[in-house]
Structure formats: structure tokens, C-alpha cells
């Protein structure tokens, strides 16, 4: 029970949850962004424990290293300040937190009682880049191409939206 696998899972699981809760508790968005980076880093270790090495590397490179940098960049650019406590936010805290706790306890109870799933060994399914690439470019070629077009559309939309409006000199 107290194997290396379980100890590592527990340590990085606790770091994950602590980062997620810190994201909720912090008032300044830069602190929330950095807590989210911590969550993503510990999730990468969890993927390594499950054997998905390429997914773990991509998680660090893409999620923690590019997407979150973009978030930090926008927070710096817009000079976001701390959140204020308004009446709307207090109502949301009072209703939202117990509601979500209730919902998640319900789901966790259902999962634990009816899961019918076994135990997973450390490095259970090795995910070498070769096998993943084969799957991605043979079985999943159409979704891959469609998602690349999707990202292209998103990029074009972002460039158009974020461009400063041209001043028309009359």
C-alpha cells in the first residue's frame, strides 16, 4: 500500500489540489496564474506516473510553457489589479462553494461505489512518441487536420480582434 508509486501520487496530488484551491482563494490574478502553473507541473508528474511520458513533456512545453505565459503576458499588459469584494461576488461565494462541494462529493461517492475499476501500476501504459505519432497520423488524421484548421481560424480571429483600430485621416 505504501509503495513509492502511492507516495509520489499522494505528494503531487496534494500539490495539485493545493494549487487549485490557491487559484480560488487568491485575489490578484497573477497569483492565480502562478498557482495554475504549479497545478500543471504536478499534473505532468502524475502523467509520468501513469507512463505517459510524451504527454507529460507536451503538458510542460505547451500548457505550462506557452499557454500560461500568454496568460501572464496579458495580465502584465492589461495591468490587472486585485479583485474587489462586491455584493455579487459575496453571493456567488456563499452559494457557489457549498454547491460545488455538494456536487463533487456526490460524484466522488458514485465513482467510488460503482467504478468497478482496478488498480493501475506505475508506468502502466508507456506512451512512446513513436506509437502516439503513428496513432495520430493514421487513425486520427482527420481530427488532426480539422483541429489545425480550427487553430488557424482562431489565430486569424485573434489577430483581427487584437489589432488596434486604424485611424482614418479625413
Amino acid at each position, binding site marked *: 500500500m505504501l509503495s513509492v508509486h502511492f507516495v509520489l501520487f499522494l505528494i503531487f496530488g496534494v500539490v495539485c*489540489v493545493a494549487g487549485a484551491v490557491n487559484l480560488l482563494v487568491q485575489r490578484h490574478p497573477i497569483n492565480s496564474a502562478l498557482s495554475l502553473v504549479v497545478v500543471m507541473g504536478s499534473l505532468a508528474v502524475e502523467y509520468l506516473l*501513469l507512463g505517459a511520458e510524451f504527454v507529460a513533456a507536451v503538458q510542460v512545453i505547451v500548457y505550462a510553457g506557452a499557454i500560461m505565459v500568454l496568460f501572464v503576458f496579458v495580465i502584465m499588459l492589461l495591468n490587472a489589479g486585485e479583485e474587489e469584494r462586491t455584493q455579487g*461576488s459575496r453571493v456567488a461565494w456563499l452559494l457557489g462553494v457549498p454547491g460545488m462541494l455538494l456536487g463533487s462529493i456526490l460524484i466522488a461517492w458514485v465513482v467510488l461505489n460503482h467504478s468497478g475499476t482496478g488498480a493501475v501500476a506505475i508506468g502502466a501504459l508507456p506512451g512512446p512518441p513513436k506509437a502516439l505519432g503513428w496513432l495520430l497520423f493514421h487513425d486520427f488524421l482527420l481530427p488532426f487536420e480539422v483541429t489545425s484548421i480550427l487553430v488557424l481560424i482562431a489565430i486569424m480571429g485573434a489577430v483581427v480582434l487584437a489589432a488596434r483600430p486604424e485611424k482614418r485621416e479625413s
Partner: protein
Amino acid sequence: MVPLSYYLILGGILFACGVTGFLIKRNIITIFMSIELMLNGVNLSFVAFAAQWHALQGQVFVFFVMVVAAEAAVGLAIIISVYRTRETLNVDQVNLLKL
């Protein structure tokens, strides 16, 4: 040997934190970050199930979810646009259809 349900519970906790953040936060950038947190929880469930059923398709699907997450980051461009016109990042104050 860690039971699979532990991984699912961890993914579920992350998802629940993401939904809670989406509901209670007022800053639009933090709301986007809660969306990313939800997607991360879902990714963990995908990889955990892939490990249990020995199906690499689960790990391939994680890539597509990451692409969607990168696109949510593109929504930040919309935020910059909103900030330029409304001068605020608080969702409660963006409540007029016309400026």
C-alpha cells in the same frame, strides 16, 4: 499500485475547483484560468483511463483537448478588446449592451 478511482477523484477535484472558480470569480482572466483548470482535470481522466484499458487513444485525445485549451487562450484577444472599450476587467461591470 494505485487504484484508478484515486486518479479519477483527483481529476474530479480539479474539475470541481475549476467550476467553482468559474462561478465565484469576478475577474475575466481568472474565469478563463478556471476553464483551463477544468480542461486539465479532464486530461487527467483521459490519461488514467488510457492506462487502465491499455488504449493509447486516450493519450492521443489529450492532444486535441490541449489544442482546445490553446484556443481558449485566444479568447484573451477578446478580453483585450473588451478592456479597450470598457476599461474594466470585472464581469459585473460589463452589463450594458451599448457603451
